[in-house]
């Protein structure tokens, strides 16, 4: 039952006349009670940026955690491979135990955790050392694609948004070139590059990287154009900020989100593409540097008698690629403005 105003107001009138004491006390009590009920609404302190909130969300996502665990294990193995590998990947110490011609192979055992390959080398050591090669190929290829693509796409995007008439023409020319690159199949492009330069790890990295350039370029350009039409860019122009500064401090940082997500996903495809090129014999022919794709190619000859030799590298490629994909997708979701509060 609400208190009737008539019984309550006289006391309030008294409070008003008696300035200071009771009125202030009551007011203070009301404010305190209100503050208490509002709880932590008035949290003070530092603001949180987009990446920080995205990170907080990713920590709660099982997809992101799975992906991160796989990626961390993979990177750790790759970096520490000389310490982890129990034997040299090239040592044919057990060469007299394996006879591929007679279908005699050695499976997992205490000494060799994953068994021996067709030349009597320790399969586990080769896998561990191979991780390093794979990581290097993936990272370098992605960096090549990211670097060249971002440069082209960023220039085209900035020119289109801020460059006026000439800018739009420049953007047009750059994008037509990119379209032509996009029209070539990735693998074909890579084979062409490899054929021109000759088979080596560098060839694989460049070939895979170049194939990713149009993807990054289109993505960054699209993001920059859509950001460039946002009101805050207009606001910066109205403020009198110089065009270069607008492009670098306003448009670019806000456009990088999807590109960074894409580079995580590209790492996965780069690893697969690199494995495919190695499998086709375009990779590093030096046996001292085992690579999962090369191992897969070598194992093919013994697929019927020793399928495990193909299964290990194949599984490693799949799991690693999955790890990067999961992480990338989780990042995309966490950064999605529609899902942000």
């Amino acid at each position: 039952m609400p208190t009737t105003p008539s019984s309550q107001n006289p006391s309030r009138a008294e409070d008003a006349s008696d300035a200071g004491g009771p009125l202030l006390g009551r007011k203070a009590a009301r404010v305190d009670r209100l503050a208490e009920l509002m709880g932590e609404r008035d949290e003070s302190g530092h603001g949180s940026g987009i990446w920080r909130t995205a990170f907080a969300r990713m920590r709660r996502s099982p997809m992101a955690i799975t992906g991160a665990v796989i990626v961390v294990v993979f990177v750790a193995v790759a970096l520490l491979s000389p310490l982890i590998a129990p034997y040299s990947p090239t040592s044919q110490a057990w060469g007299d135990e394996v006879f591929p011609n007679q279908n005699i192979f050695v499976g997992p055992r205490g000494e060799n955790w994953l068994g021996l390959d067709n030349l009597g080398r320790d399969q586990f050591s080769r896998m561990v050392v191979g991780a390093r090669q794979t990581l290097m190929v993936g990272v370098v290829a992605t960096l090549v694609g990211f670097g060249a693509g971002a440069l082209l796409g960023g220039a085209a995007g900035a020119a289109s948004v801020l460059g006026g008439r000439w800018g739009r023409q420049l953007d047009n020319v750059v994008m037509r070139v990119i379209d032509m690159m996009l029209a070539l199949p990735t693998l074909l492009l890579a084979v062409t590059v490899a054929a021109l330069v000759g088979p080596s790890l560098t060839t694989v990295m460049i070939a895979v990287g170049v194939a990713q350039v149009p993807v990054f370029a289109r993505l960054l350009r699209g993001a920059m154009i859509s950001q460039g039409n946002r009101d805050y860019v207009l606001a910066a122009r109205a403020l009198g900020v110089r065009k270069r500064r607008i492009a670098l401090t306003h448009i670019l940082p806000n456009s990088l989100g999807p590109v960074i997500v894409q580079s995580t996903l590209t790492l996965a495809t780069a690893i697969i593409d690199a494995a495919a090129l190695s499998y086709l014999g375009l990779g590093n022919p030096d046996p001292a540097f085992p690579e999962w794709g090369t191992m897969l190619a070598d194992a093919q000859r013994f697929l019927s008698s020793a399928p495990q030799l193909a299964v290990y590298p194949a599984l490693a490629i799949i799991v690693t690629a999955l790890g990067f994909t999961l992480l990338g997708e989780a990042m995309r979701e966490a950064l999605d403005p529609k899902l942000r509060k």
Partner: protein
Amino acid sequence: MSLLRINDLKVHFPIRRGVVFDRTIGHVRAVDGVSLEIQEGQTYGLVGESGCGKTTLGRAVLRLVDVTEGEVLFGGRDLAGLDAESMRRERRNLQMVFQDPLGSLNPRQNIGSILLEGLQTHGIGGPDGGGDGPGAPAGRSERRKLVLEDQHRRVVDALERVGLSSKALTRYPHEFSGGQRQRIGIARALVLEPDLIICDEPVSALDVSIQAQVLNLLESLQQELGLTYLVIAHDLAVVRHVSDVVGVMYLGALVEEASSDELYETPMHPYTRSLMSAVPVPDPEVEDARERILLSGDLPSPANPPSGCRFHTRCPWRQEELCDTERPELRPVRGAAEGSTHRVACHYAEQILAGEIRPDEKLAERIVHGVG
């Protein structure tokens, strides 16, 4: 004294088509010959429906869109004729407040950096009040410190003026409510101490109870700082509330201009009258008693505007002569009171006001007469 004078301003956007290379196949006449004058310390309200070109006009004043033709005289200088760099410097004196408070703030910048940006861009701040010139070589770091302190002081001052505390400086736009974000947008404009602020739909994205806060804030800032406003809005009630002079736009041109009270008391252009009759009033008695002029049809395309008077396709008072052949100019009202600045772009405005010309009931979809 007039602070801003716009003479026959035109902004035409080319329509481009083409697979590889674009061809221009026509123009959208977003603003098509507007002249107006804004007095120092006053508020000019520009009202019109979506697609009438009011936003483009505001942006053209700041040269955020390319001016096709005409003059924008700001304190005697023609902004439309300035080169890009001089225009960029000039922007310190003309600022803008945007409709979407969140969209107009960079999500990755904290409030401090948003507010500092303008000061840094224009090199404002420092012991001598700043300026674009390089600092004296002697004691550069000393001077730099003074500049930073002064800039910080200005930023905090602007924040406090809009009713926010300096705690906001380290926070990001998404942590604020809509009204607070709009206050930040206003502070960003204020910190440069401009003479003219163009407010493009400053309250239409805000909740009702917040709109009043922002309108009151704009009003008190004007009183304190002697600002001049160009307020662009679709809501006639808001425009009438804040403006000294109101201009009504239709399809890229001004159709009527008068002081706020005069426009409300004696709207003369048929479009103004129908617009006014369509604005809902939160009072059932007024609503029941009002006459409503419902326009038929929709806004014609600004790429292909009607001949003669742009409004003649929807005008209930349309006449056989002149309306569809000759474009009426914005002219002073004949027989208006002494000192009146009422201007109207209608051939028959006076006759319509006097009741000599009756509306065609067929053209107005229906003129609903009140019951009370």
